[in-house]
């Protein structure tokens, strides 16, 4: 089961959506760990390939999921990435933002795996 202190995400927020059901929470965490990396990869790949539409769409899809997990620091970041992609501004600043997003999410993945004893 999850520990009481969560540095990179908010268990309380997740409970708010899913209810205080350990099994359901674990299932949702599992789902998050299975689906989010592919969205993140789509963001990275579309930036590298210069495809703002795919980039905007991927960021748009990822946005609410990050909110559900209450992942600090990503609220403005993912919105900025989506908006800039919509304006086709695939610049150096965005490269930094995507790297920052990747770093934060990697920390979240690690913490979740640890908290929920997942491989």
């Amino acid at each position, binding site marked *: 089961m999850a520990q009481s202190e969560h540095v990179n995400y908010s268990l309380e*927020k997740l409970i*708010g*959506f*899913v*209810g205080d059901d350990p099994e*359901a929470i674990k*299932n*949702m965490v599992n*789902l*998050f760990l299975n*689906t*989010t990396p592919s969205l993140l990869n789509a963001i990275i790949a579309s930036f590298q390939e210069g495809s703002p539409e795919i980039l905007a*769409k991927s960021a*748009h*899809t990822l*946005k*609410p*999921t990050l*909110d*559900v997990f209450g992942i600090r620091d990503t609220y403005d970041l993912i919105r900025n990435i989506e908006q800039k992609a919509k304006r086709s501004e695939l610049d150096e600043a965005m490269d930094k933002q995507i790297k920052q997003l990747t770093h934060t999410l990697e920390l979240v993945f690690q913490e979740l795996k640890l908290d929920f004893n997942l491989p």
Partner: protein
Amino acid sequence: MDAFKIFIVEDDVFYGEMLRHYLALNPDNEVHLFKTGEECLKNLYRAPAMISLDYSLPDMSGLDVMRQIKKEHTDIPVVIVSGQEDISTAVALLREGAYDYFVKDDDVKERLWNVLKKIRENVQLRSEISYLKEEIGRKYEFRNVIKGNSPSIKQIFGLIEKSIKTNISVSITGETGTGKELVAKAIHYNSKRAKKPFVAINVSAVPRDLIESEMFGHEKGAFTGAVTRKIGKFEQASGGTIFLDEIGEMDMNMQAKLLRVIQERELTRVGGNELINIDVRLIVATNRNLADEVQKGNFREDLYYRLLGLPIELPPLRYRGNDIILLAKYFVDEFCKENKMKKLSITESAQQKLMGYHFPGNVRELRAIIELAAVLTDTDQIDESHISFNSADAAGNLLMEESSLAEYTRKIISYYLQKYNNNVLLVAKKLEIGKSTIYRMIKEKQI
């Protein structure tokens, strides 16, 4: 109650699963998750009570999906749950008929929960209304409400059956208390218009100055006292049936206005300019002979032919033979049931007394007589002592009409022949006269 079916259309696997889990926390909800608009549209036959729709889908936009849904299923509430934070998108979707629009933020779950509660209440109310409408329909299934086995009433059943198959206007005539409004309701609630309103208006009960406003409505300020707009009975009956009782009492000026409305199928509210299309079925009733009124110049001939449609002439109760007893037994059973009394029977002598009366107030009068008798009896039987006739138009009326003895004889024999379905032998026996006397009068066309 059946499960409350919810469709979630969401391409984001995590968010869709999260919504599905959240909404399924209520065990009354049956939640189905679809990843594309196409999948959702293919499954509409499963009749969801609500659809939660993502705006950005891989195969089509949320707006296109919603338009497709609304094309065939206008009643299904579609709630847009989207990551789009653009207000103009939300406004456009609401204008197109979205029930609500939520952004996927922290409040989405509470908002979704509240909107679901509201939709559930609406669905429940709608199902209650639908149930009540069906109940009314069952209540007015005409063979349940119009009791009788006499040939004259069976003929009426045949006419009602014909009238419910089409939208033809129906004109019902009959003495007071013969059940004209009951027949009108039976026609409406057994017709294709049954789920739409049945609106009745008694023309003689509305003051002449107000009848036009009552029927066609009025605009604010149309006349002194018209402080707000009023929707008239014709508009209220939209898609349904309007029943104009005592149509023979309508004055000539109003007759002209009614004729125009019937012909043009549109009306203008008093004091207004807007033409309003109307779709109503017309049923009229009167206890006057409208053809005579036309002859006398009291009723417009053109309106008479417009209203005549399928004429149904309800027989007076006195001509319905054993229906009197059948109805009496039905009324006594109903009365006992409504008042939680033990079942009462009607003795042979009481039945004879009823059969000998001519019921100027018809079925309405019979009901009143039976209900009074049910109250008066102290046993489980109604006997002749409990049956009292108080009608001002009782049998004595025949004697009040000054006539010759031959005329009285002719009237009495005619009355008995109608009552006993032209059974000459029975009538001769009842009146203790020779059957040849009756045959002779028939031959000589005296009766």
